[in-house]
């Protein structure tokens, strides 16, 4: 089955990306995670995302385009990236999600991909 792994990170984690004292460990953890996925031939796609301040949200209401600064939702944890994986079952997908570095401080959502 195909699953999306949606990575939600805390503000502290986003900050770690840029801070020279913590960046090495941060990116090292994600490199290791990516490598593990690749070695298991589990990953079919995905991308890291820039932090939420770089986000812009678009809605069309009553024929008018409304563009707003910032991400869709106002929560503490924000979408930081996603992976598209293949796994036997939800439990296998959950095992991968649990290995994602964000699981320790933020949250990782697992959702099946629509079969088109």
């Amino acid at each position: 089955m195909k699953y999306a792994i949606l990575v939600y990170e805390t503000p502290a984690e986003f900050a770690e990306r840029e801070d020279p004292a913590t960046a090495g460990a941060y990116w090292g953890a994600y490199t290791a995670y990516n490598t593990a996925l690749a070695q298991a031939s589990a990953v079919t796609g995905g991308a890291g995302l820039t932090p939420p301040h770089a986000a812009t949200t678009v809605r069309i209401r009553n024929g008018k385009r409304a563009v707003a600064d910032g991400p869709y939702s106002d929560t503490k944890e924000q979408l930081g990236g996603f992976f598209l994986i293949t796994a036997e079952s939800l439990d296998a997908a959950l095992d991968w999600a649990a290995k994602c570095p964000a699981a320790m401080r933020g949250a990782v959502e697992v959702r099946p991909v629509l079969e088109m």
Partner: protein
Amino acid sequence: MTNEAAQAAERAARESYGRLVAFLAARTRDLAAAEDALADAFASALRVWPQTGAPDNPAAWLYAVAQRRLIDQARRARTADAYATERAALSSDIEENALAIPDRRLGLMFACAHPAIDAAARTPLMLQTVLGVPADRIAAAFLVEPAAMGQRLVRAKRKIKEAGIPFEIPGPDEWDERLGAVLDAIYAAYADGWIDAADADADRVELVSEALWLSEILTALAAHHPEVLGLRALLLHLHARRAARRDANGDYVPLDAQDTSLWDVDAIRDAERLLFQAGRLGRLGRFQLEAAIQSAHASRAFGRRVDWAAIVQLYEGLVTITGGSPVVALNRVAALAHRDGPAAALPALEPLAEFLQGYQPYWALRARLLEEVGDAEGARAAYAEAIARAPNEAAKTFLRKRAARFSANVERDEPGAS
């Protein structure tokens, strides 16, 4: 329809339902389709068996018919390629398993209690898919509207299918937690978490045998796990006393006043044997402690006095294991009162007040302890709260009788009372 055919169908339904559903749904994770196909197969059985006689292996017959129904559905629903794959897989299933349906029920129970399933749906789902209990009966037992319960079940089965929840026994890392969820779900079929199981409401009696049945299946499939044995021992102890809970008038009889000759001693002995087996496996847990407490209460059946000191200690273990559950702490205070007297127990009751304001047994215990230490006003107020929150007429009657006796005493003692 001949009686013999009807009986064979009924027996096959009772004994094989869960096994058939689990095996039919295991690969596709589509419980709804499996249940529908099986319902069609049962309908066929009730039409055909009166004419041909009941088959030697009713379960295999039902399985073959249900499988063919699923193949038909696959053909209609999918493209030619998908159908061919499906058909090949299903056909080989039938050939391999012509005689004995493999038992995938343990995996099904783990799927029903999976953390990704809404907690309120786990017990209902298990009852419906493993035992074939009709949805409206489940709804009535849990005091939920049938439509709402139906929705809950539909959503849970959809989640299993869409999210790909497997019918699998979890790995060692998740085992304790996942097994705990299965045990909790079975226990919930016997008694709602917030109701003292020894005070079983009349409506709950409907699901008692179902809870016992689920626990029996689980014990047969996972007997090497001490908590599985512990749960079964607990349920057997609670069930052993069912005839003694109400007196001839239908009034409530508390545990320490029950007529032990009405207790099912065979069930108690079975429970003791299971608890002993569990103990030998050397990993204590919540259900073993609960069963041990019931075992201590059951010693009256064998002419021995209840060892309240042991019960207090067991509750202390249970408080620790449950991370400080206020309900467990309350039961410990009740035992403390038996061991050390009401005056010693009352101070232990105070810290629980803020958690148990809405919990009827808290007020019932408070009333009894205050009465026993002679606090008239306090006891009267507590009895009023306990009666107001009592779950049924029998409990109300019992409390009113106690309160009336107590009030009469107070009136006799007060100077100037008429």
